[in-house]
């Protein structure tokens, strides 16, 4: 086993998709930008062993591309990346012995096999002894509330049940580094909570194991992750603990305003008020009120905002100051809310 203290290390790693076969290119070269897509643009990260590390980003930010590079499914176009001290390009085999991955929404599996047979089959590709594989699958299935389905053929499972089976598949090989790419995507609230609890429990029982998690759910990232990297357009915008990230906004007050009678142009007017750093909005169909979340340069700006609401023909219904959330940090860094995105 590698003596590297780091589970994951990337150094200026990037990935460019070309219409034709991609080649490893130097960043210094200037390829024709109209025929390429920069999915990952020089990401530098260090994840220590035992960390539950989160990647937050909107659609197309490069989260899944980074996971593909780290899981050796995709060669980087430039830069370097290591998992457990092994280079993703030169030593893929050493990495594969030590990792596993679960993708959200993944419904793979042989329909003709039962849940338990599918899990056993995958465990064999990692050399897990059969007896141990059965013990682990029983444990995982019980934990994910799938015991009753263990002898059901995969073709007879619902989409959510298939996802849960794949979640078990990720853990059955007891990987040193586990990549969870949107693991709770599409799961119902209860099962999503069970998977989160299980992940935390697994990390607690196995303090040397590392998880890299991508998610759209702020609360999930806030609840689970030791550290979070916010990524957009292939670049890391910030990387710290959730608390430290939120502390970034301590000097900048966050207000929530509810107002009626606002038009889109009126909201644009509020957004352009001097001193407004970030604004996200939601519309409540029931009350016909807009809920505006504002990050301000300083507290005194709020009076200008209230004035702008009046000028736009809106009626103030409620106003409150609150502690910054990860969502606010995200809005400040990316410029829009994650809620405005759908799955990547």
């Amino acid at each position, binding site marked *: 086993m590698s003596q590297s203290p780091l589970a994951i290390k990337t150094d200026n790693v990037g990935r460019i998709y070309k219409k034709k076969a991609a080649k490893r290119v130097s960043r210094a070269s200037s390829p024709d930008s109209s025929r390429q897509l920069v999915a990952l643009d020089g990401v530098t990260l260090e994840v220590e062993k035992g960390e539950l590390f989160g990647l937050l980003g909107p659609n197309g930010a490069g989260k899944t591309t980074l996971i593909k590079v780290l899981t050796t*499914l995709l060669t980087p176009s430039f830069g370097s990346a290591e998992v457990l001290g092994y280079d993703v390009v030169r030593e893929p085999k050493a990495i594969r012995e030590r990792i596993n991955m679960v993708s959200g929404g993944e419904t793979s599996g042989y329909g003709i096999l039962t849940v338990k047979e599918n899990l056993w089959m995958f465990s064999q590709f990692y*050399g897990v002894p059969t007896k141990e594989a059965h013990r682990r699958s029983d444990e995982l299935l019980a934990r994910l509330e799938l015991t009753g389905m263990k002898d059901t053929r995969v073709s007879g499972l619902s989409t959510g049940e298939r996802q849960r089976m794949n979640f078990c598949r990720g853990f059955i090989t007891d990987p040193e580094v586990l990549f969870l790419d949107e693991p709770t995507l599409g799961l119902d609230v209860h099962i999503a909570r069970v998977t989160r609890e299980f992940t935390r429990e697994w990390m607690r029982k196995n303090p040397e194991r590392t998880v890299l998690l991508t998610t759209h759910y702020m609360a999930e990232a806030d609840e689970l992750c030791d550290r979070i990297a916010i990524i957009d357009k292939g670049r890391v915008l910030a990387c710290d603990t959730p608390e430290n990230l939120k502390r970034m906004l301590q000097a900048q007050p966050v207000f929530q305003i509810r107002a009626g009678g606002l038009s889109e142009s009126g909201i644009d007017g509020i957004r352009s008020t001097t001193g407004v750093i970030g604004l996200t909005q939601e519309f409540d169909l029931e009350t016909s009120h807009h809920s505006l979340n504002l990050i301000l340069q300083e507290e005194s700006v709020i009076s200008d905002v209230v004035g702008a609401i009046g000028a736009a023909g809106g009626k103030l219904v409620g106003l409150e100051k609150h502690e910054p959330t990860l969502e606010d940090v995200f809005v400040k860094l990316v410029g829009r809310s994650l809620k405005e995105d759908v799955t990547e």
Partner: protein
Amino acid sequence: MRSISPVRLFFKTVHARAVPRMIGMKREPSWIFLEILVPLVNTTAFVYLYRALHAPEAYVGFVILGSVLSAYWMNVVWAMAMQLHWEKKEGMLQLYVLSPSSLMAILVGMSYGGIVMASWRAALTLIVGLLLFNVHFATDQLPLVFLVFGVTLIALYGLGMTLSSLFIRWGREPWHLALAFHEPAFFLTGMNFPLSALFASVPGVISLISALLPISFGLDALRQLLLPGTIVGVFPPMTELWLIAGLAVLFLTTSYISLKFMERQARVEGTLALRLS
């Protein structure tokens, strides 16, 4: 997990990947219709054609032996060459690549299940030939017959593994390519007529392509050994055995290289996880 030897991991993977095929055969017996009934009916049609042409009865034996080997050919094309494409389509290929096992082990596992399936079909074809059409095979050189048969299968499945990496590069709708391997291959391998008739009628380059398909000389040698005196082989059976052995070495090597190449290219191009629809 991390301490397992590569050889042990290879065989564990072969076993694990063979199991779904075996279970599938048991749980979905409808394959019997497709894998056995259709080929048997087609074989019977060719038998009657020879009878309608008033051909010597030995030709019925030719057709039966051709049908036996065609079972393995079909299995190689559909259950092996096409398999990586299907796995990719179902999102499984990336999980295989992600695992420490080799793709070769996974393909060997698939082929093991496939060989069992094809053997059922081959055995039934032989039984029908012997009982229904009264074919008589010579049995005095059986060890050599089994040797030729075994080496032919190794070469054939080596070719299948090479084709699987070729098919996956084809992209969309590769079953068109698979279908194009039916009749042309049946023609080039002399599945229903003596290979010498083909070699005498076609340009050298076609004969060369034919010689590269392991079934051609395998079938020609088996016909000479099991139906002696009825046909003139292209070469004596022993020479053909050496040629097939050469093909086995060649295709096992090309399959190893091409699978490695396919995986590397797919990682560079980012197509391993692509779902086709």
